[in-house]
């Protein structure tokens, strides 16, 4: 079995058609789209086509609502800082405890600068309480920024409903949708969402390209000022090849939308059921009934995630973990902590994220390999004895907490 890549929420393989479409833009189509001559003109037309493809994928009303950026993080920063700059009298942000760091660490920084940041809590299955949310919407709120789908668990937030509530309260709404775009159908023109971020490399386009969707009429202040590119809303010479690539990736994502929500979902469910049937003391985190079709996040109790990943890697399986050790931080994933997953399980969470390239044979390979790896590590664990957690009261493991 060749290597099995189940880390598609981290990044994806660039689609072959995307690569083919991009190549001419490094060689014969190298012009600057702003130039008057024919070298540039052709590139300009290609960008227009790409913009329309992204518009279609998002279900946006106008292609001018698509602003190309360098990445999802730039789109997030642009949206949040724009809302504050455009409405200087409003000093409050609403977000959630489980956002991606692209939003969370900017919000923390803004809090240190004197802004008020409300982080909506989640329950044990990663769900928000909309009554709490409604009570926070007020005249001082500059922006609500809530992710569409969680990168670790795949749990979906009711962003369309939340955007409607914000709209009714006269508050701007942004969603970080980097995990949702390309995996679930979107229809922004019939939503109340003002701004949305997406990232190319999550949907089989290359790294280094993202989009900020900006609903027509939304008050906006650019992050980068300079040239007239993107109608003056994002200065800087266009990353033409990558924009063209993203356009093709958007077309391909639409073609595979049904596949993603039937076949990929079937494989994910098969993987999850297969692992859970063979491994005791393991459970799915997040909200299994309401999540992305490609994501399975499983907590393996009493063992640590990085150790699992290293052993998986040894048998050619790529996944990721919410353990502290994979990031170099001391705390396990903030998403797992927010859901109040106990430490012994939070450190042992493994995320398997599939793609349209995932096959039955690969899933079966993973189902075969995971149980012995978990058993091997549990044999080393002080929290485990024999076939279950260590339980004899006098011998229970009680470390001196340093």
């Amino acid at each position, binding site marked *: 079995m060749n290597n099995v890549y189940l880390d598609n929420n981290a990044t994806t393989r660039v689609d072959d058609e995307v690569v083919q479409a991009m190549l001419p833009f490094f060689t014969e189509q190298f012009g600057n789209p702003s130039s008057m001559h024919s070298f540039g003109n052709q590139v300009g037309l290609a960008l227009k086509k790409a913009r329309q493809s992204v518009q279609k994928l998002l279900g946006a009303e106008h292609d001018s609502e698509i602003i190309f950026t360098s990445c999802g993080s730039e789109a997030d920063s642009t949206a949040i800082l724009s809302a504050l700059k455009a409405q200087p009298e409003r000093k409050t942000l609403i977000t959630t405890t489980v956002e991606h760091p692209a939003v969370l660490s900017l919000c923390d920084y803004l809090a*240190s600068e004197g802004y008020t940041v409300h982080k909506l809590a989640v329950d044990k299955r990663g769900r928000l309480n909309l009554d709490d949310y409604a009570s926070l919407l007020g005249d001082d709120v500059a922006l609500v920024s809530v992710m569409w789908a969680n990168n670790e668990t795949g749990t979906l937030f009711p962003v369309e409903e939340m955007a409607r509530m914000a709209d009714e309260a006269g508050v701007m709404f942004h969603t970080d949708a980097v995990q949702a775009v390309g995996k679930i159908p979107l229809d922004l023109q019939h939503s109340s969402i003002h701004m949305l971020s997406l990232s190319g490399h999550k949907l089989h386009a290359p790294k280094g390209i993202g989009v900020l969707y900006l609903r027509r009429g939304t008050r906006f202040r650019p992050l980068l000022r300079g040239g007239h590119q993107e109608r003056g809303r994002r200065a800087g010479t266009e990353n033409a090849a990558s924009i063209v690539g993203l356009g093709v990736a958007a077309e391909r994502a639409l073609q595979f939308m049904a596949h993603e929500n039937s076949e990929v979902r079937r494989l994910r469910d098969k993987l999850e059921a297969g692992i859970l049937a063979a491994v005791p003391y393991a459970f799915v985190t997040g909200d299994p009934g309401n999540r992305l079709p490609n994501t399975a996040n499983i907590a393996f109790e*009493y*063992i*640590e*995630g*990085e*150790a699992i990943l*290293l*052993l998986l*890697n*040894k048998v050619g399986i790529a996944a990721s973990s919410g*353990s*502290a*050790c*994979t990031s*170099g*931080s*001391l*705390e*396990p994933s903030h998403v797992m902590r927010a859901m109040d997953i106990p*430490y*012994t399980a939070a*450190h042992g969470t493994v995320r398997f994220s599939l793609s349209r390239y995932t096959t039955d044979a690969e899933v079966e390979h993973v189902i075969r390999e995971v149980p012995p790896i978990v058993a091997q590590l549990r*044999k*080393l*664990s*002080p*929290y485990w004895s024999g076939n279950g957690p260590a339980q004899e009261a006098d011998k229970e*493991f*009680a*470390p*001196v*907490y*340093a």
Partner: protein
Amino acid sequence: MWDYSEKVKEHFYNPRNAGAVAENNATGDVGSLSCGDALRLTLRVDPATDIILDAGFQTFGCGSAIASSSALTEMVKGLTLDAALKISNQDIADYLDGLPPEKMHCSVMGREALRAAVANYRGEALEDDHEEGALVCKCFAVDEVMVRDTIRANHLSSVEDVTNYTKAGGGCSACHEGIERILGEELAARGETFVPAPTKAKAAKKPQLVTLEVPEPTPAPAADSGKLTNLQRIRRIEMVLDAIRPTLQRDHGDVELLDVEGKNVYVKLTGACTGCQMASMTLSGIQQRLIEELGEFVKVVPVSAPAQAQMAGV
């Protein structure tokens, strides 16, 4: 993916002494579950000689935690308790050919477990002097607790102070924002305001170290008794470097002698010395020691990796 040494990988994939030791008479449980590590060390100690006859570990933790535990059990077997207690966390890391800075706490955990087990065997209470925070400086593996404690104990008020006392911030300087934040909080707590150092152009660097000069041809070995032969010189140079080495290794760095040509002594700084802002100070220190030892002027020339490849090709 972490840059683990082959030895770390080997001890992780094939851990030695996993599981509790049968008929053990010492147990050390340490860890911090919030940071994903916990370790139980069990020992069988010969009561007559205090020699550790067998050691076993059970670890909840990442690859390097398991490797550190495995290494520790190998290292302590056959030692007396007193000798085992002399093992430092750096010794554990060295045994594994080094650990990434973010993972040094795994070796600390190993040492703590050993102390706990020995205290357990002797019926003593374990003094917990170890507290650990989020890593601030990755170049020198300094955590937040260490930075805060040092600021409080020494009444520090600038990033430069913090670097001088803890080394944090002395490398790539990416953590200066974090250190400023900590200083801001600590100074506010004692009723002061953090004032950043004024921005100023860095004093012009002395162009002393990297040279493009063609090295002078080596003079023929002097026959007269007053002068050292090349071999003698090189031995003395090695001796000086060996004397300096422990100091560098304490900071996770090292120096290697590459070549000697005339008055030029070519060395390579490795480990944490690479890219360290203090590297030029280190080099001038080495040069001074060499001049004193050899009784002649020599120039210490640092060689970077590409240049080294070129040298090998000549």
